[in-house]
């Protein structure tokens, strides 16, 4: 176990930036999201839950899939899935790191491999940061997570006052531990970390009751439960856009004159046009079907396909919903229905 003084953090990041492209939480116009750092000072690690999840470091909101240029009778293509630089994702919260493991199941599936995602994933070392003060909307402990879960991290930092305790979990993480900046942690430091962790856990609400949720949903495809649930929903899609586990995307071409790009953008199953077919037929014509789809995908289908819930309890959909539709309450209502 190592530690680094907080006063040395900027120096640490500056050194990382020499050999890595470093992505970290940056505040722009009041919104914290993960951006490529241009200077160490830009990073702010006192955020509680970034507005946008760090999934965008691997699966950007907008991503060019290839560029093309059309000439007379010919077309030249330039594919953009290659990732040259080694990357570090710095300061991601444990829930968001665990979400990446769920995205891996989709994008790194055995049959079809999505190189745009996989290449970034393979080139990235993840430095996770424990949550000393979870929010009231956090419910990661419901999904086998916790404010200090280390699953998926290469290096794990715990804020213990003037220091960060640093635990390397993989050789990739080990490589970051600069000898000049890190020193051995003392027993007192480890004890302090345990105390911080205990206090954080004490702030968490009790986990949701999820035993039998999938089996319950199995019986609810035609249930009247869905009839009224969506009435309050505006269909804005923020719950799915800001979800660290949602991975739906749209593919569009953007071109001007002879040059263009094929681009993929985040999409949301909460939009009516999402399933609208060219003929005008829409298999999910109302909020009823769309809400059912969102719930079923996360807590039923994904479990059936991969054995895990498609949720890490980050609480973004709870915080950002303009009409206070709280997925925790919806789950409880399903269980009680």
């Amino acid at each position, binding site marked *: 176990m190592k530690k680094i003084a907080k006063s040395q953090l900027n120096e640490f990041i500056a050194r990382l930036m020499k050999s890595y492209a470093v992505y970290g939480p940056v505040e722009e116009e009041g919104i914290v999201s993960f951006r490529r750092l241009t200077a160490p000072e830009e990073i702010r690690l006192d955020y509680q839950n970034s507005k946008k999840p760090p999934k965008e470091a691997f699966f950007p909101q907008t991503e060019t899939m290839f560029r093309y240029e059309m000439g007379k009778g010919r077309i030249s293509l330039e594919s953009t899935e290659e990732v040259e630089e080694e990357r570090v994702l710095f300061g991601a919260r444990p829930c968001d790191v665990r979400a990446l493991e769920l995205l891996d199941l989709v994008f790194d599936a055995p049959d079809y491999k999505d190189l745009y995602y996989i290449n970034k994933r393979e080139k990235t070392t993840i430095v996770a940061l424990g949550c000393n003060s979870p929010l009231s909307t956090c419910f990661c402990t419901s999904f086998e997570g916790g404010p200090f879960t280390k699953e998926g991290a290469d290096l794990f930092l715990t804020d213990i006052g003037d220091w960060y305790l640093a635990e390397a979990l993989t050789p990739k993480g080990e490589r970051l531990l600069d000898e000049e900046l890190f020193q051995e942690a003392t027993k007192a430091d480890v004890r302090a970390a345990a105390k911080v962790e205990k206090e954080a856990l004490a702030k968490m609400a009790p986990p949701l009751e999820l035993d039998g949720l999938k089996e319950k949903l199995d019986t609810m495809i035609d249930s009247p439960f869905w009839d009224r649930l969506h009435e309050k929903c505006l269909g804005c899609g923020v719950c799915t856009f800001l979800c660290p586990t949602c991975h739906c995307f749209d593919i569009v*071409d953007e071109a001007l004159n002879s040059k263009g790009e094929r681009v993929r953008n985040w999409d949301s199953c909460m939009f009516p046009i999402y*399933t609208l077919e060219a003929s005008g037929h829409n298999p999910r014509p109302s909020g009823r079907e769309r809400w059912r789809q969102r719930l079923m*995908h996360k807590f039923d289908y994904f479990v059936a396909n991969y054995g895990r819930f498609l949720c890490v309890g980050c609480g973004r959909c709870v915080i950002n919903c303009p009409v206070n539709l709280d997925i925790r309450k919806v789950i409880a209502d399903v269980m009680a229905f």
Partner: protein
Amino acid sequence: MNTTENIYSLYKCRVLRVYDLIEDVKLLLFRFENPDIAESWTCKPGQFVQLSMPALGEVPISICSSPMRRGFFELCIKKTGRVTDKIHELKPGDFVGVRGPYGNGFPVDEFEGSDLLLIAAGIGMAPLRSVFMYAVDNRWKFGNITVINSAKFGNTLLFRKELEAMRDVAEAENIRIIQTVTRDPDWPGRVGRAQEHIKHANTDPEKTYVCVCGPPQVYEDVFNTLIKNNYDPRKIYVTLERRMKCGVGKCGHCIAGTSTFLKYICIDGPVFGYYDIISTPGLI
């Protein structure tokens, strides 16, 4: 570093012919430019490709031709939007991008030794033509064959002329072709909806596989009539339409779920069995 192929990359294809079929629907013949791809590319009846128009985007289109002809394929495309409008402007010699084939296709190996009943409504003949052409190309593998092609008007019957021109072959090969319209007073041939002609098929309900394609509204009546006429529900297959983007089970658009499983129409479909359809609300 990348040893795996990019699943979104395109094959370059050349347009060879463009036929006008009915109003707003064209049939296009394509050839792969790369000889290795042309040699190795195979598909099954009922699969689809993603067709790219540079600067406009991609559309998922069912393969309309027999998979027996190497290096070539046909797509039947109705003009319905931005991309398909431009596809209709394609001329022989133009290039497009294609990726695929995707989807499960019809289980034609399972069909072998049985009779075949193909029921198309509206532009449903487009994907079913691949099954029909495959069956004609492999005539000895199948029993009796009936095609029921239906539309509102005589001049909106898809592949009407082609099917008419096959009359002699059909007679020689024990294939019955029934073309019927529902709203055309000037039409000299058969009238009525597709299901009303199931009784005229030359297929033995006990040993027939049925493939159906049409607008969502037709399925219930067709299913009911088939079952009333003793066709085996386990042998009824349908090919579905969906808004699709990736075609490879990532983008989420085509997901449909039942109580017990999730289906990506692009991977698990677009061909589904009768029991899948009736047990999956929202699949059609």
